[in-house]
């Protein structure tokens, strides 16, 4: 099958193409060079006047793993109120804030997304997370394995094990859990919660292990760098949602000492304590620190108004937030001494001062961080808003008058506390393409995704240019996944299965000796069962594994 996409306006930041008219050729699922001799074009699409980008990549979205199922169990109304019927090619499902796996895949694809990365794969629940993601059609997926509050690592730190031993343990865990990155959530805080600590600052010791979050971050960030994983340590910092946590965030940036680090949903970590309500925006300083420290990347975790559910590994902060839950029901639990989990439904309201300011803080972050290669468009789905609100968010970023119109409707005190109205910046299509495509692929280390040059997989999204950016991004004309046309006019027309992206850093096999004894003594499963094999993802014939190169590898 040889496909030609003719005359589209191409935005491909990965190869520096910014709105040029170009033809794109697709053969056997990949983008190929313009054929030199006459090759029969099986199918040609006339894309004159259309906008062509690669398929979007959501680099932080909670689409697999146990907490999603807890959220589903907790919120049957989320599913009752949003049923999706089956069609001849798609399966039925339901859910607005936390859709079923099939609906997740369809809805992402219908917005032009072709990959999503689950940021909180607990090693001990990795099998479940991958099984669930295996049921997400169309999308590619991958996971960041969650470490930092696991007993084994904390014991290693208490025993002052050397960095080499920790590198081996991290690399081994990434293998066992089939991960492409490493995530740390409230470093050591989830563990501290179980020893009755209700908050843990960057330099506060875990009461049992005597380890501070700063130690954990440094050791893990070093490990990730030394074992050659492209995606920097993915950090959900301390003190999420606490007024005044901007200082913690600044200290975290400072404390990592120049190592690569990705700060996730930074909106929840950028709060000051000024004003009558002792809650203010700390974006000016945070954005300045990010602009200055080139080793830092961030995603925003924008909140948007409406009903959603927050699902996080940060049981300490979720426990503290449960009293704001709406509807009033919540779950906080331990997961096998490895980590935690907290699920609290939230209804963000534009007339609520705190929510309104959170909304403004997220947008300020987008607009004040200069380099679109180091900031990523997320709502931390579903924590800030369901991923289906991305087109609305893109419009807020690209359309200043629309942004100011919405701003004028939020809580008046919040309007006074934000500089949003005075910020003139409007994102360009190229910048959106960087944030949601090229930048994301580069950050995660996907070698042949996120770009439209020859050799890349043909994940391509085609939009009709429209000044109403929400309408434009809501409903792509065409979406190709690995060269297969999957969406036409914002509706799924065929489905397929994406691949699972992983990396495989080296480790010393003797790391298993200590681990085996530990598993036998303390854990609920044996070491051999803890490790996932590739077959578990591939043997059903739909899933596949794509291994990406490490830093320093010759691609």
């Amino acid at each position: 099958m040889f496909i030609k996409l003719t005359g589209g306006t191409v935005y491909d930041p990965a190869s520096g193409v910014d709105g040029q008219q170009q033809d794109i050729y697709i053969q056997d699922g990949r983008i190929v060079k313009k054929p030199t001799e006459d090759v029969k074009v099986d199918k040609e699409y006339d894309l004159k006047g259309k906008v062509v980008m690669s398929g979007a990549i959501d680099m932080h979205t909670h689409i697999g793993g146990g907490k999603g199922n807890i959220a589903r169990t907790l919120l049957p109304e989320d599913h009752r109120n949003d049923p999706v019927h089956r069609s001849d090619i798609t399966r039925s499902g339901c859910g607005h804030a936390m859709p079923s796996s099939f609906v997740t895949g369809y809805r992402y694809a219908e917005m032009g997304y072709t990959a999503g990365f689950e940021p909180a794969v607990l090693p001990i629940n990795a099998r479940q997370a991958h099984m669930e993601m295996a049921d997400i059609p169309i999308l590619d997926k991958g996971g960041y394995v969650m470490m930092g509050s696991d007993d084994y690592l904390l014991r290693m730190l208490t025993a002052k094990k050397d960095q080499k031993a920790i590198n081996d343990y991290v690399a081994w865990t990434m293998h066992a859990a089939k991960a492409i990155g490493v995530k740390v959530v409230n470093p050591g805080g989830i563990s501290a919660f179980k020893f009755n600590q209700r908050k843990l600052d960057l330099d506060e010791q875990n009461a049992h292990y005597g380890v501070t979050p700063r130690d954990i971050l440094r050791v893990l960030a070093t490990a990730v760098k030394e074992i050659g994983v492209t995606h920097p340590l993915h950090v959900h910092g301390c003190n999420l949602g606490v007024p005044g946590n901007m200082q913690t965030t600044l200290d975290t940036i400072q404390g990592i000492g120049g190592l690569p680090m990705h700060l996730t949903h930074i909106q929840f970590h950028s709060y000051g304590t000024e004003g009558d309500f002792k809650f203010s925006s700390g974006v000016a300083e945070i954005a300045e620190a990010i602009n200055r420290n080139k080793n830092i990347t961030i995603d925003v975790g924008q909140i948007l108004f409406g009903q959603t559910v927050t699902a996080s590994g940060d049981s300490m902060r979720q426990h503290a937030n449960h009293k704001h839950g709406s509807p009033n029901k919540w779950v906080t639990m331990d997961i096998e001494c490895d980590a935690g989990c907290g699920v609290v439904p939230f209804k963000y309201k534009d007339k609520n001062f705190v929510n309104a300011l959170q909304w403004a803080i997220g947008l300020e972050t987008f607009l004040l961080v200069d380099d679109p290669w180091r900031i990523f468009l997320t709502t931390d789905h579903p924590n800030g808003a369901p991923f289906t609100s991305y087109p609305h968010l893109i419009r807020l970023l690209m359309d200043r008058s629309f942004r100011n119109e919405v701003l004028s409707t939020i809580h008046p005190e919040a309007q006074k506390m934000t500089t949003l109205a005075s910020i003139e910046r409007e994102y360009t299509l190229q910048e959106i393409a960087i944030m949601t495509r090229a930048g994301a692929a580069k950050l995660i280390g996907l070698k042949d995704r996120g770009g439209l040059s020859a050799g890349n997989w043909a994940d391509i999204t085609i939009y009709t240019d429209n000044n109403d950016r929400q309408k434009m991004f809501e409903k792509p004309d065409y979406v190709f996944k690995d060269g297969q046309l999957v969406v036409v006019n914002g509706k799924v027309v065929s489905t397929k299965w994406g691949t699972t992206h992983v990396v495989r850093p080296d480790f010393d096999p003797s790391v298993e000796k200590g681990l085996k004894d530990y598993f036998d003594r303390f854990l609920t499963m044996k070491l051999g069962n803890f490790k996932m094999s590739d077959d578990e993802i591939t043997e059903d014939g739909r899933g596949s594994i794509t291994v990406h190169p490490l830093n320093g590898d010759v691609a």
Partner: protein
Amino acid sequence: MSALTFTLKHRTAQRVDMSPLVCHLLKELKVADIAALTLQSGKHKLRVDELFTIEGSDAQNIVIKNSVDNLDFIGKELDGGCISVSGDAGAYLGFGMKAGELKVSGNAGLYAACEMKKGYLEIAGNTGDFLGAALPGNKMGMKGGTVLVKGNAGERVGDHMRRGNILIEGNAGDYCGSRMTAGTIAVMGQTGRYLGYAMHRGTLLLWTQPQLSASFNDCGAHTLAFLPILFASFKSLNSRFADVSSAFNRVQRYAGDMSETGHGEVLVRIA
């Protein structure tokens, strides 16, 4: 105009969703249009005239004849008007009902008066579990109106109930008044185990001494002036609750559930 009457021709193998056949949805429609409406039954959609013979035309006054216990969602979100069912009703009878009157001559299934808001629901026979409760996962059950059950009710009567009256002439099953936020449940017969389990506020009015859990405290015997007023409000009902001989004002009062806020009360008649 005579009552719009649906007479069931035969019992279907699968359950039937009756929610389109309520007064406020039919009032603008001609009989032919009503006949052409479809009802979901299992995987199939059935035309109304496949299932029922239709007579009369007054949509404010609907009669369902030969009704059986697999006709679900009768009177769903009923907003004024009258529905009278001769025979049994299925699950979710009067679900989310907003106003009007709904009467069943036989028994009703699970979740009768589920999340009912206002109006009057009368069941001459027995009713299943979760009378006046919230849907699973929801936090608010019945929010208003009156439910009268002449027979017995199943378990979990008034689960998460918020306001309104549930009157039961017969017995109530286990967990009667569980997780109640407020409202009144009166039971003339026996009640089961775990009465008022995790209730926050609200009143359980009983004719016979229940088996109370340890988290209810005995507050002694009281003469309560509000009881005659409450009974007076039942006077117009076609029920034993309207009998002067049923009324009383002297009760033993128990407060609970102390494992919750403990503002709920169980009032037991002192004969």
